[in-house]
């Protein structure tokens, strides 16, 4: 029913915009990753693989990448551990309060990411709320220093931020499970536990995969929480990129790292889409 002109009119403007502001910048990032910086601090447009060689050769780059992936993996696991049972509780036990509780999970997302990271800083610092509270009730004599400026602080803060992200797709998946399947399992004599493990959990896997992907990818690329709360031992890969684009002034090397991250993210996305399809209804 829609004419060719209609289709062209709705397709072309976004297509052009997305090409100019997304596709070309990504390709540009790819180009930059082969260039280099001269001694006089100008970018030399000579094509070579030196930047990628450096990523493999210099320990600090791939070690930081591995550490970032380990931090992101912990954030993902904790977000799922917090988010899944919460989603399950809301979907199956919350009754009429379901909508209200759902909104309560969403509301923290409306508080700026930066502000929440900052709030954790005021809680975890050596004269912060938690340490002074512990001393006030005489549980500790001296402030616990490991709380702030550590990977612990980064993992805690990112878990706080990404738990609702993990929760949302899991909750959506649980809500889509036909209730008569659950009733059938119940009627056929399965205990709630068996129903959970054999019916509900397998059907909610697509939501778990989507939530895990969100939490992992977004925390992997984070650079503000590590800057604010991480200290030297909590540095992540994006912090290196930030310094390469700033004080260290090596855009091409920074572009090479960013492009590797982009590839990693897209690979994970494709992989998780496959998993979701495999486990989804159809």
């Amino acid at each position, binding site marked *: *029913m*829609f*004419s060719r002109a*209609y*289709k*062209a*009119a*709705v397709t072309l*403007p*976004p297509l052009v915009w*997305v090409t100019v*502001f*997304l*596709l*070309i*910048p990504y390709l*540009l*990032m790819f180009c*930059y990753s082969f260039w280099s910086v001269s001694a006089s601090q100008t970018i030399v447009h000579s094509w070579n693989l030196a930047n990628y060689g450096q990523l493999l050769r210099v320990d600090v780059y791939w070690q930081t990448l591995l550490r970032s992936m380990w931090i992101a993996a912990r954030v993902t696991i904790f977000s799922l551990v917090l988010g899944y049972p919460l989603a399950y*509780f809301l979907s*199956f*036990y919350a*009754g009429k309060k379901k909508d209200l509780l759902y*909104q309560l999970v*969403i509301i923290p997302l*409306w*508080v*700026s990411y*930066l*502000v*929440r990271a900052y*709030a*954790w*800083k*005021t*809680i975890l610092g050596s004269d912060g*709320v938690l*340490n*002074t*509270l512990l001393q006030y009730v005489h549980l500790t004599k001296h402030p616990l220093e490991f709380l702030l400026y550590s990977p612990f602080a980064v993992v805690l803060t990112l878990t706080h931020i990404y738990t*609702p992200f993990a929760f949302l797709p899991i909750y959506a998946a649980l809500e889509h499970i036909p209730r008569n399947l*659950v009733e059938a399992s119940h009627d056929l004599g399965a205990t*709630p536990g068996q129903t959970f493990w054999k019916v509900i959990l397998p059907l909610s896997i697509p939501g778990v995969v989507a939530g895990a992907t969100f939490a992992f*990818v*977004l925390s*992997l*690329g984070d*650079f*503000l929480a590590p800057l*604010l709360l991480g200290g030297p031992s909590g540095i992540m890969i*994006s912090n290196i*990129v*930030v310094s390469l684009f700033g004080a260290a002034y090596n*855009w091409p090397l920074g*572009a090479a790292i*960013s492009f590797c*991250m*982009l590839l990693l*993210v*897209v690979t994970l996305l494709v992989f998780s889409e496959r998993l979701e399809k495999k486990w989804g209804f159809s």
Partner: protein
Amino acid sequence: MGLFVSETRFDSGSRWLLGHAVGVFAFLYLPIAVLILYSFNGEGVGGFPPHHLTLNWYRTLFADGPIWDSVLNSLQVALAAMVIALTFGVPAALALERAQFPGKALFRRLVLLPLILPGIITGLSLLMLFNVTGTKLSLMTIMLGHGTALIAVATTEVFAGLQKLDRAQEEASLDLGANYWQTFWRITVPNLKLPIIGAALLIFTLSMDEIAVSFFLIGRDNTLPLEIWGRLRRGITPEINAVSTIIFVFSLVAIVFWYRLRVRGESAAEGETK
């Protein structure tokens, strides 16, 4: 009602789940509560128990020129981002739902990518574009960055709305002699009112809070999150808590507004089908 509730309301499993839920909510709200509480604390951002409750930080805040300048900048950026994202996101949703063209799969992936891509990659790739084209960094470059990244929000919201839309109305409008332009503005858009308003509110708040993309595209004028970021590095006072509290209250108002709108929209839709 919960399915197991009638028989097993007090079994250990559901009690465990309830306890877990209370714990997660405490974890989610603890920093927000601390943030708000210490915006009234005379002694600074930390220290238990809070001392000398005061409104001084709010007074300091209201007299703080740079903060309000940055708020104005952020409002401009958010409005522009909303316009850009809707202008291109709504047609993109129509294109994805109604048109077939070569490269559609890539187009879909590109449009949605910024939603899940860490902001640093979106920010840096645009920085390189602006660098190569010799574009000076300013609020304008941040608007372009936010607008582009948030097209994904408009597209997903509107696409979901389109799938529920009954095409018969559009067909009737076309059959009765309206052209596509009239049909779009008089039938398609009014029917997508809720997803469009929802997307607009979401884009607005996401842009107000955005920092990772702005971080790389900033010129001379700060947005609010970048102004806060600059102050966090210089040493912190409850003034930051105060401004965050005010923004939180505004966000809450926006959520309640959106929620009531949606509930009304849904009950109206149910009324029509009855």
